């Protein structure tokens, strides 16, 4: 399986994603420059975290105009697997590949810490190695992760099982107290209608090695690998 990690100017988690795919998962991986326009040779695209173009405007608002994003859109519309992590998620929202938008965290602070996440749908390309209701410990690292969507969109996401991850407490209870950023309905990660595009605020690449405190992020990486194998 061949991963492509997109680098926008200001991306800063691309090296970490590369490290985990290459060294921990043992998969093929290459960087994709934001000016590249052909992404057809990859089996999964990763839009990594960071501060694309400094995020001086709305997060991801400029990155979506990068030449590579046209190719990413085409790739996603053709059913290709795309995961957007943190800033990558924000870019997917701005590009219209996922519905909704991000506001600043309600604390008005940047937050970097481990959070607990409930797997709300384990029957997706991104979570099939997990269990329904499983609690994952994975770090978040953002200033704008307060997910919002209009009522109709929200209802549709819930009804179609497209809310993949919610912030929860250690026991898996989805509570207001366990919500670190004010996100609507504790939403931490969602999919598109085809479930081939996944956006999430937590960083699964930061929870892929025991020495870093958690390997729960592997559920996501290994799921997409299993999905790919199965489809092939």
């Amino acid at each position, binding site marked *: 399986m061949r991963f492509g990690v997109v680098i926008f*100017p*200001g991306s800063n988690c691309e*090296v*970490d994603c590369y490290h985990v795919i290459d060294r921990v998962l043992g998969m093929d991986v290459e960087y994709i420059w934001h000016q590249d326009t052909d992404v057809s040779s990859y089996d999964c695209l990763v839009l990594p975290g960071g501060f694309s173009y400094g995020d001086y405007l709305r997060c991801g608002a400029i990155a979506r105009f990068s030449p590579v994003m046209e190719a990413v859109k085409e790739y996603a519309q053709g059913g290709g697997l795309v995961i957007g992590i943190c800033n990558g998620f924000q870019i997917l929202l701005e590009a219209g590949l996922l519905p909704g938008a991000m506001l600043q965290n309600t604390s008005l*602070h*940047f937050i970097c810490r481990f959070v607990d996440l409930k797997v709300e749908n384990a029957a997706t390309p991104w979570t099939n190695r997990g269990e329904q209701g499983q609690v994952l410990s994975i770090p978040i690292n953002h200033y704008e992760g307060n997910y919002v969507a209009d009522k109709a969109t929200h209802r549709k996401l819930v009804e179609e099982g497209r809310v993949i991850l919610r912030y929860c407490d250690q026991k898996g209870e989805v509570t207001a107290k366990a919500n670190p950023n004010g996100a609507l309905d504790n939403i931490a990660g969602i999919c598109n209608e085809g479930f081939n595009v996944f956006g999430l605020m937590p960083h699964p690449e*930061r929870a892929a*090695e025991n020495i870093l405190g958690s390997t729960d992020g592997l559920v996501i990486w290994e799921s997409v690998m299993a999905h790919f194998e199965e489809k092939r």
Partner: protein
Amino acid sequence: MTELYQELGLTEDEYRDIIRILGREPNKVELGMYSLMWSEHCSYKSSKMALSQLPTRASYVLQGPGENAGIIDIGGGLAVAFKMESHNHPSAVEPYQGAATGIGGIVRDIFTMGARPIACLDPLRFGDPDKARTRYLLSGVVAGIAGYGNCLGIPTVGGDIYFDQCYDENPLVNVMCVGLMSKEAIIRGQARGVGNAVVLIGNRTGRDGIGGASILASQEFDETSQEKRPSVQVGDPFTEKLLIEACLELLEKDLLVGLQDLGAAGISCACSETAARGNVGMQVNLERVPLREEMEPFEIMISESQERMLAVVEPDKLEEVLEICKRWGLNVVIIGEVTEGDLLEIDWYGEKVAEVPASTLASGPVYDRPAERPDYIDEVQSYDMDKLEHPEDYNQVLLDLVGGPNLCDKRWVYEQYDHMIQLNTVVYPGSDAAVLRVKGTSKALAISCDGNSRYVYLDPYLGTQIVVAEAARNVVAAGGVPMAMTNCLNFGSPERSDIFWQFREAVRGLADAARFMEIPVVSGNVSFYNESYGEAIYPTPVVGMVGLIGNMANRLTIGFPEEGLAVVMLGETKEELGGSEYLKRVHGLVAGKPPSLDLRMEKNVQATCIEAIRLGLIKSAHDCSEGGAAVALLECCCAGGVGASLEVDEGASPIYWLFSESQSRFVVTIEDKDLPFLEELAVKRDVPYTVLGRTTGGRLKINDWIDLAIEDMNGSREEALDKILAGGTKD
């Protein structure tokens, strides 16, 4: 011209020296250049003599002081570059941008040497937490560090924070950056090769930060300080991130002869320092500098606009250099060339606007300032402790100590920093030292910053020795062998004899401790004029210690890891309350002598601890420092979520045993079966060794003095900063 040189901060003598050097009156541009380069901030004119006594060498030191950062060899072809700096005055005037550009500056110092920045640490000092200004400064500084550092993708893994009213007007924002590099990749801030091109990379130059080094950093504060806001630079972390990537790519492809960042004193400093280091001259066409706004030569020369780098490039490599910079979306222009001789010539549309010997800019005057022991020392040291009446509810005292601003949980701060990116942080903030793995090896780095200024105020010589000892001890507790240190020396005005005495004594203490412990000082920074309305801050030397863990599996944290372990104290608890947090928090006193320090014993205790860690005997380790043994034990319980039941010297006075801040002590945990081995190691080096009790349950119990549940202790320490920031506390 007379008024101008004074306005620019030069003395009459210095002005006369400039005339002597040039053989004529300087013009305005030249005067601007000298005023910055000869400012205290850039020239170290008051500190140079004292600093020369610091030990700077060891077999593994690849670069000592004098360059942009110090570098040590950690084996396997790898090297570590690091340095600490201050951005105190800008942060006092504009906390967000002041702190942000502080990060930007120190990070540039590291990648300028060819190293990829892998960690930042930020020692911060603020005033009385009850004051609205303190909350404004704290929030702004932390947000500025987060806003800039997080964007760069460099984890902020440590630092420390103390509050004291001496920092009310003049907070301290010290910033340290650590970089990792291949030993071969070291590049210096040197111009070489006549005919080579001088290339300016990065942001356009604007009017921000005009005269930062002379106007802000080298003068005390008064009611006009807010008017100095235009002297604070504005940070652009996005461009800095691109600069890092572009410069490291240029270095990796071996395209540069020299590289220098533009920091204080901007183009003046970068050109004169690189030329002076390379014993060459430089000719610059100033009109080629990309500008944000219309500016005159004087302003361009002294602007401190951020995110700019100066590179020296051989002509045949120019094209590739320009191409790479453009691919990263950076401005890049050839502004001049390296010339024979030692003249720095600045042209403006063909007209010469400055012509000065580069070396005379880079090596400013040197002053031997008068120093006199201040009277307050005797007064504070002779305070009669015996007359104090001590409280008897030790539980309450302990909760009160850890519920205070200095010893409380600092999660509110470090959770605003990305402390995980790059996937190297294997001991997260909140322990004695941050630990970063070195990918591709079994090694890790242990890094700690320390600086108890209360001790230094009470006794500058002894206090500074303690700063060094404690920084090393923190590295040891994490399993590291201290290798080298950097520092930032924050003091009042060197023109005052009492302050200068503090400075000299502190540097003597630093030098003696470093020499005895065989830990070289490889880089550092001096920040004078930390005064406002005539009041100086406590003398505040801060040390950043870097240690090496040979096998990262040996890294330790402070938390009690499990029940049923023996809790052992290495070192001796003495009756020493001078300068303690207990005295300050409970009695409102800053008095007495700092705890005694026997450097030989310190070294022996550290050696015992590190040997036991290497042998795999020890399960957790924590140094005893501010707040004494009681606070150290509480932190071990809270960090590990495991309590302890301890029976200690019944005959001891509880206040002393619990809260004395005696040096050279560790609290460690160990399995019973390994106790004899640890005892043997301790006895071998004459290190006092006491089994205090065992880890058990969810409470900390010490004799019938202390009995507290972990959740209550956590509650007290976790709420503290929130309360302070809500403005709801009253000390």
